[in-house]
């Protein structure tokens, strides 16, 4: 009986310790200048724009963010920053201007795309495609 108590206590202690040392990775805040966040999307979201955005997504973004924006791309596991699930409100509640800013400027593992995708219209197309990922 005594041995059983010791065993159960040990298991509980190990469980408690594992919880104590587990850190849940919170996304680092990414402030967007107000001027950029308020920028209106000049490209109307239509089939043509979404198709162009999808092509850019598959070429430049899906390897980290995943085909459906779930953050499960083939390179995601190698990154220091876990790509966020873009189908959820945390991403979708951001303004078009904020998404445009983040794609253009990049941060840490997320590269800047303003030189790789030099035309602003293309980045807006990408923003329009990101909106279609919403669940």
């Amino acid at each position, binding site marked *: 009986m005594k041995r059983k108590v010791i065993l159960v206590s040990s298991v509980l202690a190990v469980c408690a310790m594992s919880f104590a040392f587990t850190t849940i990775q919170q996304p680092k805040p990414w402030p967007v200048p107000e001027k950029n966040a308020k920028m209106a999307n000049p490209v109307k979201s239509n089939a043509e724009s979404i*198709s162009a955005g*999808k*092509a850019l997504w*598959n*070429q430049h973004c899906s390897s980290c963010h995943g085909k459906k924006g779930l953050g499960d791309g083939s390179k995601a596991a190698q990154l220091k920053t876990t790509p966020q699930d873009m189908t959820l409100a945390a991403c979708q509640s951001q303004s078009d201007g904020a998404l445009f800013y983040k794609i253009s400027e990049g941060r840490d593992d997320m*590269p800047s795309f303003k*030189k790789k995708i030099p*035309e602003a219209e293309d980045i807006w197309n990408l923003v329009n495609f990101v909106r279609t990922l919403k669940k």
Partner: protein
Amino acid sequence: MKLKIKLPNSLLTLAVSLVSCLFLLQTSTLYAQDSTGVAKERTAPVKAKPVKNTFDGTWIIDDQTVIVPVKGTFQMDIMHRFGTVGNGYQDLDGIFAPANIRLGINYAPINNLYIGLGFSKDDMLWDGNAKYAIIRQTKGTYPVSVTYYGDLAYDTQFDPDHSLFPHTTDRLMSFNEIIIARKFNDRFSLQVAPTLSHQNAVKGFYTKNDSTGTTVFQDMRHDQFGIAVAGRYKISETTSIIIDYDQPITKEPTNNPHPNLAFGFEFTTSGHTFQIFMGNYQLLNPEHDSFFNANNPFSYTDANGTKVKGGQFCVGFNISRLWNF
């Protein structure tokens, strides 16, 4: 006494005319302001933009595509051509046979221009190249894209007794082409390119050399015309089937070069283009391939009347890494 001013009729007419003109001008200005206001309300006509990504990279197997990357793009190429297939397990169908390798770099200093430098193993060949986009396919304006590509190659193989190259300029060869391409839809693009290759020196021998004069037989011509056709069909956003065909047109007196038929797959990522394929060209330089390709995709009869089996393909790959500065 009342003062009477008598103006000549002509002066009166002039004054009335000037006042009328001022009114007219004023009225015109008012109309101009009004029309500006209307223009602001109207939606501006959307200007058609050139089509993008006619091809996914600057290479399509052995040929250049019509694509000129955006200003500030830096590219590094690693290209391999293995040995010809046919020996089976002995050299794993050419994979373990001696391979030709080219390392190259390119940069776009301004929009529409791409300049580059390369170095190939066979003949220790250096090449400098330039590409300029003349026309970009634009809906309603230009049905095709047109790009010029030129390459100058310098053979640096060891020749201490000058038996191969009596003069330094004999080492030079050049290549020029105009590439005409059309993107038919998001999946399918096709291009055709008339080409002109030039070699500074050709081998020859005297067929007559006596007091009555000399006649020299040249085994090849200095210039070789050809035509290159290439196409891409995308099977997904990042994977394409690619095909490339080069046909020499000028008939050489001896050592007539063979055509090139190449086909394979292309995989594109944000910063890479990777192509793996089978083809007949092995020399990794357009002017050298145009003049000296000895592999034939088709069966043929040689100069001695012997039937030679075709299918002399080799496996190859191109890797391009892109950076944007």
